[in-house]
């Protein structure tokens, strides 16, 4: 089946995936790799999802290093390449650096779109494009629940529905006159803001991205939201405005003409001369502010476009209306509906020290997709996933190697973990990569779970969790400022943590 034809006509499939952005492409390919038959439909005409349109000012926030300390195309290289999708096919691995021209390590939007298009082609991800999801029905029969997915091409029936439709519905806050603002999604080319006074509602990355792009054009830029700007260099995480969008902030603190305010929106009105006036309440309680502007842009985020699923029982939460999920990305209130791509952010994980997983970005969601595909294969389709045994004398080497090289643990810190189960008769078994919340909360046999974590201090350090007779304990290991974790000291520290677990099962590692 060629990828350019229209595969997957309406009908019954074991799994239906909706979406052809990185989330949908990665999940479809991961399902194919484990052998789960499924259909993929998308309203778009081509692969790429949001990267077919955004970011406006043409470069991504996530980097790819064409030249890294490890060989391109290896598993370890994924740490340095945040934008390529994952596959066992050599010809489709590490594609992003092949589309970059050396002018930046942040790929441009067209370079990302080319990367995703090439992946769909070389990994042979078939999608029925131009097929729009219009509604959903839930039906019960003797075998359980099935979903009927209505589309512009007809109805699809499945027992497992996976949504990878992004968090792409523009969100604007309630305020009188808000209709006088236009949303981030409707921003025009930068030059059309030449010599204008621009008011930007919102101080997250999208607001600062616009302000950065408009610096050479706008006469005045004011950004406002109720709470102070959080910067990623301060939080030492991806929380906050990223370093590459900081220029408007520096302009503000040096008095260059950009203003960054802590105030909430009261209303927007059009004045008789055509100007817009934005009324604000200062967060420090010091009173009201009125700012005149030619343009008001709402960089106030996006929500999940879940269509009728909330009415069917899929509970959502938060400003982005993300679906409430189990650690395995299944709706907690509408079983059988799963989420891939940025929607997977609804499975929050532990959020230790306030640091979220990277599920809202390609470099996090791509691993979630692979873990989800394996979970579906094992739990829903009864397919065996090879879980290799580990000889006790190689356990330390295995753990040290995962800490030093595993991209899943590096990119999804305190969110995904590698689990080794320990059994006195079966021995040690590599139980694969799992959500940490599941590994900690679901109980089970004695086990060792390894992950990397960060606490906002700037350090990235290994953490082991041990479970002995149901009791879970946490063992953070010493951080190394150069992230050198494949060392004799690390092996000695690992030995100290795992020895009691092995002893409890009567396993000797020597």
């Amino acid at each position, binding site marked *: 089946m060629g990828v350019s034809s229209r595969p997957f006509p309406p009908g019954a499939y074991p799994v239906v995936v909706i979406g052809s952005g990185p989330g949908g492409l990665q999940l479809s390919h991961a399902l194919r790799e484990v052998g789960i038959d499924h259909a993929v439909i998308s309203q778009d005409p081509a692969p790429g999802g949001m990267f077919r349109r955004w970011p406006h000012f043409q470069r991504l926030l996530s980097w790819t290093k064409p030249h890294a300390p490890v060989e391109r195309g290896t598993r370890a290289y994924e740490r340095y390449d945040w934008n390529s999708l994952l596959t066992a096919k050599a010809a489709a691995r590490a594609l992003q650096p092949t589309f970059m021209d050396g002018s930046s390590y942040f790929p441009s939007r067209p370079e990302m779109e080319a990367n995703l298009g090439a992946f769909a082609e070389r990994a042979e991800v078939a999608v029925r494009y131009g097929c729009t999801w219009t509604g959903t029905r839930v039906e019960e029969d003797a075998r359980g629940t099935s979903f009927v997915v209505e589309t512009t091409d007809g109805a699809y029936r499945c027992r497992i529905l996976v949504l990878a439709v992004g968090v792409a519905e523009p969100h604007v806050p309630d305020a009188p006159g808000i209709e006088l603002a236009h949303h981030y999604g409707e921003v025009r080319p930068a030059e059309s803001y030449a010599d204008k006074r621009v008011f930007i509602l919102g101080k997250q990355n999208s607001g600062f991205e616009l302000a950065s792009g408009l610096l050479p054009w706008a006469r005045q830029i004011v950004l406002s939201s109720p709470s102070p700007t959080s910067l990623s260099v301060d939080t030492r995480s991806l929380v906050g405005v990223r370093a590459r969008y900081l220029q408007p902030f520096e302009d503000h603190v040096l008095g260059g003409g950009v203003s960054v305010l802590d105030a909430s929106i009261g209303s927007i009105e059009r004045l008789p001369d055509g100007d817009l006036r934005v009324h604000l309440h200062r*967060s420090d309680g010091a009173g009201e502010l009125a700012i005149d502007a030619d343009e008001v842009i709402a960089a106030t985020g996006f929500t999940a476009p879940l269509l009728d699923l909330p009415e069917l029982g899929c509970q959502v939460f938060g400003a982005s209306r993300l679906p409430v999920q189990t650690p395995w990305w299944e709706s907690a209130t509408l079983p059988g509906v799963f989420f891939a791509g940025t929607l997977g952010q609804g499975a929050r994980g532990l959020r230790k020290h306030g640091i979220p997983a990277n599920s809202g970005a390609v470099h996090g969601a791509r691993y979630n997709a692979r873990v989800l595909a394996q979970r579906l294969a094992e739990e829903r389709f009864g397919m065996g996933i090879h879980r290799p045994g580990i000889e006790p004398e190689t356990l330390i080497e295995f753990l040290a190697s995962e800490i030093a090289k595993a991209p899943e643990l590096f990119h999804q810190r305190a969110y995904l973990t590698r689990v080794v189960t320990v059994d006195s008769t079966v021995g040690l078994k590599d139980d694969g990569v799992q959500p940490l919340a599941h590994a*900690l909360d679901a109980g089970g046999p004695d086990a060792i779970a390894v992950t990397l974590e960060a606490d906002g201090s700037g350090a990235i350090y290994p953490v082991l969790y041990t479970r002995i007779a149901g009791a879970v304990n946490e063992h953070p290991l010493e951080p190394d400022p150069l992230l050198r974790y494949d060392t004799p000291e690390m092996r000695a520290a690992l030995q100290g943590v795992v020895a009691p677990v092995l002893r409890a099962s009567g396993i000797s590692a020597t």
Partner: protein
Amino acid sequence: MATREELVDALAGFTLFGDLTRPQLTSVVHLMEEVLFAEGERVLRQGLTGSGFFVVLDGEASVVVDGTERAKLTRGDFFGEASILLGQPPIADVVALRPLQCLVLPGPQLEQFLINNPKVLYRMLQAQTRRLQSAQRFRS
């Protein structure tokens, strides 16, 4: 799911935030994140580092120490602050008994938040003193 205005209204009714002006409440709602935990989900984990400060908006949770339920938490209650203030892991699990809607502030932000909002700090101190008094009565 609630709108920002509804969240502000909810906080305005809680003793902890009762002294804040509406713009200050709006700022608090903007700073904290709304989360919803499914029934049976663990919100706080006994003995594990890195948790946050939670304010219950709706639902019910159980405070469990070593497998034994010690208390229940409902709308307006808050938890998680003790382990953050002391720099130690929580001494209890908190588990959602039914869908639990909370506002959460990451642990590392709590100190600055309380410094910026001394009236919340005062109300929190009052609540802690009441808890201490009640524990002492229980012991005597």
